[in-house]
């Protein structure tokens, strides 16, 4: 393990990050060539290459073959300290949201779903699958399950434009209080990749969540796959 050997590329990475953060480089601007960067920072090409690789790995830059490196647009920021639906959360931040429903059907709960919702195997649940957009960018691929007996007729609603949580609260009078979420690292499968129009990187956040009602009954569970090159999470802890 020994001595830390990559200080120089760490420094160069920091220098390029500064240009990025201070606005010298704007989203989708081309980066100077490796040779130019090597001259500018007075280091060898290999150091530049390592720094660029790390910036690419962290989604700060992207590469187009034959064209060079470009500055990535900033990632969207999702605030985890507050509980809100996709729709109201992002709209409060000034974005427009939209969903495209891929699927809305009644199925018999498979084991993974019945376990999360605390139902017996095979209980009828609504199975809603949507691609969620911010502006015109697909960000999240979400599959939700809601027990039919709790929200009879849920499939009448248009979830392209209205929020599932909102409908559950306002139409069905279920008050949602807690969301237990597990975040893991995943890669997109072919279907998710196509729907999310991901061509550069297939890294994604996987959120598995269970939403509980006031009396702590599970009322919805969801698996959301979100492009990691497009989003990060933020939280504020007060001591």
């Amino acid at each position: 393990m020994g001595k830390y050997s990559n200080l120089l590329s760490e420094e160069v990475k920091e220098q390029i990050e500064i240009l990025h953060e201070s606005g010298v480089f704007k989203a989708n601007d081309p980066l100077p060539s490796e040779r130019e960067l090597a001259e500018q920072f007075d280091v060898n090409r290999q150091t530049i290459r390592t720094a660029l690789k790390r910036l690419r790995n962290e989604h700060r830059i992207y590469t187009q073959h034959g064209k060079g490196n470009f500055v990535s647009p900033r990632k969207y920021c999702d605030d985890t300290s507050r509980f809100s639906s996709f729709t109201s959360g992002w709209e409060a931040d000034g974005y427009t949201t939209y969903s495209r429903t891929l699927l809305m059907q009644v199925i018999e709960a498979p084991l993974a779903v019945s376990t999360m919702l605390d139902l017996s195997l095979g209980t009828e649940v609504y199975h809603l699958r949507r691609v969620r957009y911010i502006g015109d960018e697909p960000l999240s691929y979400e599959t939700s399950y809601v027990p039919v007996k709790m929200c009879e007729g849920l499939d009448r609603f248009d979830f392209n434009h209205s929020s599932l949580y909102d409908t559950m609260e306002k139409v069905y009078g279920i008050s949602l209080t807690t969301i237990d979420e597990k975040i893991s690292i995943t890669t997109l499968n072919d279907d998710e990749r196509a729907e999310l129009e991901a061509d550069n990187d297939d890294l994604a956040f996987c959120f598995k969540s269970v939403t509980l009602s006031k009396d702590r009954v599970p009322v919805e569970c969801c698996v959301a796959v979100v492009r990691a090159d497009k989003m990060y999470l933020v939280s504020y802890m007060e001591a």
Partner: protein
Amino acid sequence: MSKLTKEKAIYLQLAELIEEKIFKKQYRPGQMIPSERELCDVYGISRMTVRKAIDSLVDKEILTRVQGKGTFVNRTDMNSAMDGLESMRAFIRESGLLPSNKVIHTAVRPAGVKYAKIFGIDEDSLIFELFRLRLASGKPVAMEYTRVPYDLIENIDKYDFENGSLYELFEKSGFHLGRDKQTLEIVRVTAPQSNLLDVEDNAAVFMLHNTVTETGGRVIEHTRSYIAQRAMTFSTTLT
């Protein structure tokens, strides 16, 4: 089915049995499971077979052997990872694994544009740089890059960070933690991070940034961490 079970290798049957007990929380995360000798006696099988079963679960990262102590159930989920890394230490300790730090690099250097902005100091002001590898029972779990304004704590560069914690040092020096802004991303790591974390080149890991403000309003720490942990869980309450 029963025929199949009988034909299944005994070590696999034992491995499945242990896994099932973990799933049913008969063996809890962080808990030590019975010794090899005890398992031999209880199930009437050879030491070799027991060892093979445990080996297979260690390979699957379900169990961890701790030299001279025993075999422990891994905690696969980190509760409230967003509590930051100091709680990660606590989490490691609670899980029965032995936490340790390895200081990879320390330096005192000018803040430069990036850290001048973060700490609200001059570019020429000095910062203390501390790179640490966090381990649990000798296994790397996180690589941390910490920066602190150098004038904050006298002789900070002489402090023993292998055995002492930065937060203890803050408290001792009269700085109380006020606010911690945390961002979480998923990125890929390459050398040297991948080597230090003992993951493959280009492996996906969590990247966490912590910006810590003390109660007086001064930013006292900025840390970037790469965390080799597959999943994290947290809970949000509706307000």
